[in-house]
């Protein structure tokens, strides 16, 4: 009997058991999180413990990770765990946003309950890009007028509440439009709508879907130069906020100019060092408030996210004017005193507490009734605005009673700019 062989076999068995034990112990200890919303254990934070909270309204101990991102909550193998994630790293991409951010209990539903974000973004002009598409097709003879017929995706709207709202748009199919200019447009110019993959370049860097705006790149990202605002290519931004700085808007806006003859986009090529020069591109004309405030300090939620109707042009949705805040030589700006504790102004101020808004406070309100929640009427007749992103405090007087010599009826930008535009 070969006892040596028996010893060898026993030794090999013993070593294989030790090896198996060692391999097993190298797997990270599972760390569980049971979010109160779903009551189901998730193990994502075993590997992702250092990810920051995305926002105070979406606390991870309430939502967990899987409610928004999808994924396999019990798997500790990277590929399996990530295999069913919605939208890859970005569950707010418009192709999957309805399951991630939408849903009955979240950001999809009725306007009355202030829950119609999904419906508004789906039809908004920043998503459909209907205006640009309509203009090009009209210019090059593919449609008889400027009413939009196509958007970046097909969309329908059953409830039309404005005069200019459309019932539907088809998907833009450049292959069926003969004119080569339209083909060029499709190839070169479709990189700036909510669900577009942006161009290469750190200045253009943004996510798609809701995160295009609501997950702004950090302002002080030091990795690369950030000429016009933007993050380093592909860096993680796990954040959801309503305090969106102008730099995020500038990942699409103020990027340069179209050349319609060559159907290309000419990127701006200045290298600005300060906000005054970063904000708008070199040809622009603007007043001081237009560059000291962030875009969202004036532009309202309906302007940015749509009113639920499909529009043919951004002119149909943009309505903020200088007089909305400043009034005219003959009228004070519109105000509203808050009486309802559930007023949307108070809810918005709660989300981004740069001001302490209460029932009884008086805020400026737009012509369409949207309250400018970061403003207030001061007792001395002046007004105050606090920057939603910058948190700076600005006090200003109404035009009524000032030395302004304009009429109040011309609200085109060139009119006020005549005296108030900034030189740089």
């Amino acid at each position, binding site marked *: *009997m070969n006892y040596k*062989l*028996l010893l060898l*076999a*026993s030794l*090999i*068995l013993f*070593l*294989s*058991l030790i*090896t*198996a034990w060692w*391999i*097993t112990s190298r*797997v990270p200890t*599972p760390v569980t999180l049971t979010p109160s919303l779903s009551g189901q254990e998730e*193990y994502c934070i075993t590997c992702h413990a250092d990810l920051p909270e995305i926002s105070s309204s979406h606390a991870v101990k309430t939502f967990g990770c899987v409610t928004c991102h999808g994924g*396999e909550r*019990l*798997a*500790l*193998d990277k590929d*399996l765990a990530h*295999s*069913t994630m919605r939208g890859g790293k970005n569950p707010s991409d418009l192709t999957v946003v309805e399951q991630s951010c939408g849903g009955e209990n979240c950001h999809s539903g009725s306007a009355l309950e202030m829950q119609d974000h999904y419906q508004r973004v789906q039809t908004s002009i920043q998503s459909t890009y209907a205006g640009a598409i309509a203009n090009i097709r009209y210019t090059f003879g593919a449609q008889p007028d400027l009413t939009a017929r196509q958007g970046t995706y097909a969309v329908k709207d059953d409830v039309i509440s404005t005069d200019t709202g459309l019932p539907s748009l088809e998907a833009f199919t450049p292959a069926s439009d003969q004119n080569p200019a339209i083909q060029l447009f499709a190839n070169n110019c479709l990189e700036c709508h909510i669900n577009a993959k942006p161009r290469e370049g750190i200045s253009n860097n943004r996510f798609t879907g809701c995160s295009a705006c609501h997950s702004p790149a950090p302002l002080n990202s030091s990795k690369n130069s950030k000429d016009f605002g933007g993050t380093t290519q592909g860096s993680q931004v796990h954040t959801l906020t309503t305090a969106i700085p102008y730099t995020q808007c500038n990942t699409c806006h103020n990027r340069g100019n179209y050349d319609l003859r060559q159907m290309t986009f000419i990127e701006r090529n200045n290298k600005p060092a300060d906000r005054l020069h970063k904000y708008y591109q070199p040809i622009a004309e603007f007043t001081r408030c237009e560059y000291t405030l962030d875009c969202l300090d004036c532009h309202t939620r309906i302007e940015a996210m749509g009113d639920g109707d499909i529009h043919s042009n951004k002119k149909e949705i943009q309505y903020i004017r200088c007089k909305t805040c400043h009034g005219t030589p003959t009228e004070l700006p519109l105000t509203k005193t808050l009486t309802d504790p559930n007023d949307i102004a108070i809810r918005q101020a709660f989300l981004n507490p740069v001001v302490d808004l209460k029932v009884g406070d008086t805020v400026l309100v737009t012509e369409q009734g949207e309250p400018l929640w970061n403003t207030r009427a001061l007792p001395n007749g002046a007004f105050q605005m606090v920057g939603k992103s910058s948190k700076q405090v600005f006090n200003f007087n109404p035009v009524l009673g000032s030395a302004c010599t304009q009429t109040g009826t011309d609200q085109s930008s060139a009119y006020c700019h005549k005296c108030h535009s900034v030189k740089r």
Partner: protein
Amino acid sequence: MRPNFFHHLHPPSIPAAQSRWCYTLGAGGIALFLMFVLGLTGILEVFYYIPTPENAALSVQTISYLVPFGGLIRNLHFWSAQLLLLVSAVHLVRVVFTGSYAPPRRFNYLLGLALFVLAILLDFTGYILRWDQGIQWALVVGTNLLKTLPIIGDTMYTLLMGGTNPGAASLIRFYAWHLFGLSLIAVIFVGWHAFRVRRDGGIALPPPSLRANNLRISRFVLVRREVLAMLFTGAALILISAFLPAPIAAPIKDMTAPAADASAPWFFLWVQQMLKWGDPFLWGIAVPLIILLVLSLIPYILPQPIESELGRWFPKSNRLAQIILGAIALIVIILTLIALITNV
């Protein structure tokens, strides 16, 4: 020493020539050992596996990632199963290429074939229990093949699946087949197969007058050799299972959604390849059954090996059987390789 229970399971002594590793390759014994490992690891998995469509894949994930050593147990179960099919095939080849199916061993040969088929069915039913997107199409295709049987097809499908489509009833029936139906039959047949080996005179050898020598080994030596084989096989299994995980995929969400991977399990790739050629009943059921029939008839129809040539590889007298088995094996292997290369 006094012989214990395990010693008594063996004859007091056997001819030394029968027990040579290079003769039997230890294939039958290793196959039996693998069945023990499968039974043990399988029982351990029963403690955590949940046979409902909502929970099956999640419970497999729990076993793989959360239960201490769960991943190891699952991998052991998976690799033992695949190794069992390979070792069984080696055993079949050995039996035919050494002419060991000659009378009185013809019935035992059929028992062995039945065990091979049972092992394949056990592997398939176990595969289905994962209930994830990797098995989804194998489930649909494999069971739809039943419907192609003339006259009895739909009834057989309902009997197997408990309904008209794969669902909760199918899962629990597959579970019942895997744990009890097939396993019980396999255990009985294994016992019978082992009994027949002894009753038929042990591992095939020429009659005593024609043997080269009369050397024998005792039951103690035999048992020790088996223990050695088990230790080495066990160690190899543990090492393989520690480093190579069993396949796993995301749970089935929607029975009709297109799955990323539409490959058959590896042991059915040859059938998947044939199914690309045409009629499903012909290529999916008839041809495999014909192959099984041919294999079953080898000891009955083809020229028998002669007594003096038993006990060694490649006897001249049953050359035709060797060629036929070799050809079948080669075809199955080639079809498998073609399927691997051409599957998207």
